[in-house]
């Protein structure tokens, strides 16, 4: 351990620490610009200059890269140190007059105007080299570097052209203390409401505030470490050493007698309807974007704001985006009307804006829902019946300038209207989850035509499937709201318990069978069986049906081109006899 004094305060630090680290640990602020804890110190800006006395001599040294030594007497705000710092800042102010941190520092140090010649009043770069070091030390790309000398010195990729070494991580912009490096959203990265940072922020993050478990994960597609093998900043700053880059997805095997599938839905991707401009206009947002925006723990603390940070004065809510539309999904997503009404209510409450709801018809079917709709009517929400044709920023009148214009056929007025608003919320529908067909195959269940899981019977067995012991809950079966999901999940749990309690179940007698003397082993049936009950016996050259798995759906019987597969109780001969019987009557 090393003992030194900073501003007269006795301090003990570990060997090898710098003066800056020693000061920071004891809450003594030394201003820095080119310093960053995860990068090697560079001492370029010389703002951290301090007066150091050691063995009778005093000298001006940069705190960021000077190691603390036994007996050092450091003064961070001595006349000499401040003088030097002031001079350095004044010179930086001449170099980069537009850089806000420099202006702020200058103000703090009492500098009103630089005495030196200003080359470019818009310059922001202070040549601190953070970007260059980040690109080299963290990203490992070394895509940018200093070029030229003296007043011509600047940071640039090789030959001033876009570099192939650049991986587009924007770390340079992140490390830049003065905002001299900016970037555009053109690397396939989804950044909506850029100023409010509604999109994914960092490669390591907690997915949402309500996440369970409440731990961060690394997005390997975005993480620099997984691109270049470098960086590891998160591991460097984690005291608990909890960051593990080698962690892999684990397959956990659980033996279960009954299974409840609750694999959920995915939200309709509004980009699929280009006319609505989602992804093109920052103020056209999806329902989930709005949920995040209006969330008290969200990026704006629950305030409804536009991309530029201002409050909207008019908001349009477009219903049935991706639902009840032959081009996308024909079904009604059931939840959108009510959440769209909730949005309207929240906007009234929080932003005092005019709210327009564009609907086909309002489906307020649940308990208390109709009453809620009437409340919205009283609150002054404007309801326009008609499907929105497009959303654009092309103003035809002065009144529309700077607005988003919603074009809609008002079917009650019988005319096409143009409604200028500041923000559009797309009430996106619910779609089946990503791997619905794959899951169905794994669990030997079927999907209905819209690829939601198929229940055994829409009225009498809504949470059962055609596979005994496998039950459904929630939106994996069909779009539904929370109360319905809770009810169905309760029912599914009860069904599962009843089965588990009994321990046995009865098989269906009407199954299919394959006559192996007639089966040629063409295997047409094998892949068709929704219950994977058919196995092709390669050595024997014919297929066989497992009676325990067969549910008697008859798919294989219809498909069998040689008539070797027959359904018990529904053999071809029986069916023909039935038909003949009908004609006899």
């Amino acid at each position: 351990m090393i003992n030194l004094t900073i501003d007269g305060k006795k301090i003990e630090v570990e060997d090898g620490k710098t003066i800056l680290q020693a000061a920071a640990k004891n809450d003594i602020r030394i201003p820095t610009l080119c310093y960053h804890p995860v990068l090697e110190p560079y001492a370029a800006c010389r703002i951290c200059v301090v007066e150091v006395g050691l063995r009778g001599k005093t000298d001006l040294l940069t705190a960021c890269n000077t190691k603390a030594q036994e007996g050092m007497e450091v003064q961070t705000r001595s006349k000499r140190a401040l003088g030097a710092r002031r001079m350095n800042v004044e010179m930086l102010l001449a170099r980069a007059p537009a850089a806000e941190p420099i202006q702020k520092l200058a103000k703090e140090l009492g500098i009103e105007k630089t005495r030196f010649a200003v080359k470019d009043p818009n310059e922001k770069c202070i040549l601190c080299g953070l970007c260059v070091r980040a690109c080299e030390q963290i990203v490992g790309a070394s895509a940018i570097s200093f070029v030229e000398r003296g007043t011509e010195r600047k940071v640039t990729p090789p030959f001033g052209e876009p570099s192939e070494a650049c991986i587009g991580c924007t770390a340079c912009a992140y490390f830049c203390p003065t905002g001299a490096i900016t970037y555009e959203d053109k690397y396939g990265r989804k950044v909506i409401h850029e100023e409010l940072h509604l999109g994914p922020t960092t490669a390591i993050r907690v997915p949402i505030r309500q996440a369970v478990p409440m731990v961060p994960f690394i997005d390997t597609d975005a993480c620099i470490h997984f691109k270049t093998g470098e960086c590891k900043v998160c591991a460097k700053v984690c005291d608990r050493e909890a960051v593990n880059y080698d962690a892999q997805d684990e397959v956990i095997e659980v033996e279960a007698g009954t299974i409840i599938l609750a694999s959920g839905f995915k939200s309709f991707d509004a980009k699929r309807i280009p006319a609505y401009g989602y992804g093109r206009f920052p103020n056209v947002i999806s329902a989930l974007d709005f949920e995040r925006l209006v969330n008290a723990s969200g990026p704006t603390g629950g305030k409804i704001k536009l991309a530029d940070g201002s409050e909207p004065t008019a908001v349009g809510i477009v219903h049935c985006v991706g639902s009840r539309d032959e081009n996308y999904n024909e079904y009604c997503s059931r939840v959108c009307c009510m959440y769209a009404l909730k949005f309207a209510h929240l906007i009234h409450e929080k932003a005092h804006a005019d709210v327009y709801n564009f609907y086909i018809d309002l489906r307020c079917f649940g308990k208390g829902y109709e009453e809620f709709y009437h409340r919205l009517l009283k609150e002054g929400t404007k309801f326009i019946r008609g499907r929105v044709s497009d959303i654009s920023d092309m103003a035809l009148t002065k009144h529309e300038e700077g607005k988003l214009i919603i074009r809609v056929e008002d079917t009650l007025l019988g005319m096409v209207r143009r409604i200028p608003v500041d923000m559009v919320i797309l009430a996106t529908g619910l779609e089946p989850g990503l791997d619905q067909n794959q899951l169905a195959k794994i669990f030997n269940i079927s999907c209905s035509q819209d690829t939601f899981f198929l229940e055994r019977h829409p009225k009498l067995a809504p949470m059962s499937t055609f596979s005994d012991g496998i039950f459904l809950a929630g939106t994996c079966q069909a779009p539904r709201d929370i109360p319905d999901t809770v009810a169905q999940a309760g029912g599914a749990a009860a069904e599962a318990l009843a089965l588990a309690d009994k321990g046995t179940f009865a098989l269906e007698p009407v199954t299919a069978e394959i006559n192996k003397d007639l089966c040629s082993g063409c295997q047409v049936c094998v892949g068709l069986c929704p219950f994977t009950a058919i196995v092709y016996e390669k050595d024997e050259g014919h297929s066989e049906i497992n009676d325990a798995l067969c549910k008697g759906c008859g798919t294989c019987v219809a498909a069998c081109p040689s008539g070797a597969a027959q359904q018990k109780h529904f053999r071809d001969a029986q069916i023909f006899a039935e038909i003949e019987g009908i004609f006899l009557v």
Partner: protein
Amino acid sequence: MSNAKPKVAFYWCASCGGCEESIVDLAEDILKVVAAVDIVFWPVALDFKKKDVEAMPDGSIAVSFINGAIRLSEQEEMVKMLRRKSGLVVAHGSCAHMGGIPGLGNFWNKETIFRRAYHTTPSTDNPDKVVPLEKTVYDGKELTLPSFFDTVYSLDQVIDVDYYLPGCAPPRDLILNAVTAILEGKLPPKGSVLSPNKSECDTCDRNKTKPEKLSIKEIKRTWEIILDPEKCFLAQGVICMGPATRDGCGHRCINGNMPCRGCFGPTDQVYDQGAKFLSALASILDTNDEKEMDRIVQSIVDPAGTFYRFSLPKSLLGRKRMETIK
């Protein structure tokens, strides 16, 4: 010729002549047949007349091999006579068995076929609009032609048939087996098709190349792709009737790298070869989307001619309804 040898007759109806060829194709083996039997009627090869057969006592011919479908009154008359004169009648080849290629005429009728054949084909030059008539007077003499039916029939739709020799044309080993069985009296139950009752995949070398799940995204015609000489045709997206077609043909088409066209007809347990294969094919289309399914199905050129190429008269369809033919 000795009277002790069994008498055999061959006759052709609406056919291409290929089945006659199939008998000639027995090559030197035909000598064994000739040695064992007495051929009493074979219009394509031997100069016997109708009156010769008429003169024979009923049932005196041991077996008649009749090929071709029944499309004319003359054919009906001849096969009815042969039935009377024969102990056994074997439907020889796909046309006698199921109606065959001529059976596709059942999508039309006499009027439309005549209109096409004698008036509207691009190569027709018939300014006087002459069509064959059943009775014509020429030089004061009346000439007659057999009448042309609206519908083509398989042999067993006109007369009682004892056995069927499938194929277009039946392969020589099946013919020899049949002849041998008849000569030796080792006959299967009446009405049998003299060929194995499994479908072709059973003995097809390509069956082992089938993927785990047979599924078709695109249907290709044989000229649209370069056919893999070893891979299952269905796995290549090419319609192969093999799974719905009786085995026994010796895979002549498949060995020639052409998919099965279904000439052997369905297995015993299938009523309608075309419908059964259509059902199988529809089952393996790799989509759940109705529009996509429609697109794939629309890409099948001439589905009726593809699935019912040999079996229309004998199928559940039988023919197109007369009132819908224009």
